[in-house]
């Protein structure tokens, strides 16, 4: 077994590239529309850029704050640190900061703009519920998110939706207020154009949203795969997933609603019940993730 190609899942790669290309097309479309209509939405782009940049730059602080997580030292959580230490050594990556959120909901997330500025965070609930081996698998999954630079990727991906949304809102106000102040030559015509822009931007943001969610699901599968390969035992990650999703369903909903905005960062989504349309979900269904992991297990065992 000299050089294995276990790292890549060709099908997943293809789907990810297609999603990425479609998002790129959307970016082109939106910029094309702006140029064709000669609308001066420069400052929209500046605002969107600033929002995205801050989201990207402060992602660790935002996520830690909204989860009420605090950073822990090696003295406070020796076991968590020891696990991450060894995983990082094996993966040959810098060790991220480690946080703990004092909440009972079993989950974990990784955030931070680059592997050097990353934070991996686990809730007290996940640490209590999982066995050491399973917790390690979850941490490996989160470290894979860090290594894949998922915060950067998802920021870029979600940019098009945000841009379209902002432009749509501007156009809507423009249409309602009758064309804006700077171009008075033809008010009716201008209003019509802005209506079109508004409708178009709604369509674009919906498509962009669906694409971003799809990309997020693919990134989850990719992190599952890399994490499982890192620990060498896909089945352990699978059992962690089963245990956590089972537990999340059993926890009162009030706690979950508070955390739903954080879903994109989580190890398992904080949605109770499996009825949420899979198209709108940041995470693949448990079934899909388990299938992918058992397929990987078979590949590792040489029965591909």
């Amino acid at each position, binding site marked *: 077994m000299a050089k294995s190609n276990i*790292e890549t899942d060709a099908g997943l790669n293809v789907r990810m590239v297609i999603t990425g290309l479609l998002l790129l097309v959307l970016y082109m479309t939106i910029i094309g529309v702006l140029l064709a209509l000669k609308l001066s939405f420069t400052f929209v782009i500046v605002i969107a850029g600033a929002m995205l940049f801050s989201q990207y730059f402060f992602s660790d602080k935002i996520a830690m704050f909204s989860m009420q997580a605090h950073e822990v030292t090696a003295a406070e959580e020796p076991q968590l640190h020891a696990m991450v230490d060894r995983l990082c050594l094996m993966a*040959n990556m810098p060790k991220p900061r480690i946080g703990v959120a004092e909440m009972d909901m079993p989950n974990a997330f990784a955030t931070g703009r680059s592997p050097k500025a990353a934070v991996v965070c686990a809730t007290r609930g996940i640490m209590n519920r999982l066995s050491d081996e399973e917790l390690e698998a979850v941490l490996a999954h989160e470290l894979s998110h860090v290594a894949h630079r998922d915060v950067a990727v998802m920021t870029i991906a979600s940019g098009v939706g945000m841009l379209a949304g902002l432009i749509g809102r501007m156009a809507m106000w423009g249409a309602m207020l009758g064309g804006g102040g700077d171009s008075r030559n033809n008010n009716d015509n201008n209003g019509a154009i802005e209506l079109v822009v508004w409708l178009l931007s709604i369509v674009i943001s919906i498509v962009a949203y669906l694409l971003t969610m799809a990309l997020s699901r693919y990134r989850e599968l*990719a992190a599952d795969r890399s994490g499982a390969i890192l620990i*060498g035992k896909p089945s352990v990650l699978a059992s962690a997933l089963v245990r956590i999703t089972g537990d999340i369903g059993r926890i009162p909903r009030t706690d979950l609603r508070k955390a739903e905005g954080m879903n994109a960062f989580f190890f398992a989504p904080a949605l109770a019940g499996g009825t949420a349309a899979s198209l709108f979900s940041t995470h693949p269904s448990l079934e899909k993730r388990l299938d992918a992991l058992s397929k990987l297990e078979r590949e590792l065992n040489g029965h591909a």
Partner: protein
Amino acid sequence: MGLFDTVFGRTKQVQPKLDNLFALPTAALTLRTGLDLVPSGHAGLCFKAGSGESEVNSDADIMSLLNFEAGADAATIATDDLGFKWLLLTNEDLDELVTRLHSANETLVEHGLGPRLLCAVFGFWGCGFGCCHFYLLLEPNELGKNIKL
């Protein structure tokens, strides 16, 4: 991590740098003259066994795989509280210890465990302060170039 690895969301498995071990016999001489540290004759190799490498699932499999001659070397396998396996070797001669550990390394790499080799540890005795251990990281990063106390 290249751009394409980021785009595809994949990580390359990291192969270990086994040659780091061979810096030890020379360093041991320096340690002996400079700090009065002598090899204790114990060494350990830390790695994480996974599923997949079907021949190396149990401790007995690992032992038979490594094919150690009974007798001169005492070799045992232990599992620590983080689930990592330790191959523990004893041999009075440091050069031989290094060679044995290296061959164990190579066997594990051949069986696909390369990315999950963590470190090698060698024990030393000092006159003043009992035992100390030198950790040799087997990863190809900056740390791996140094011998860490």
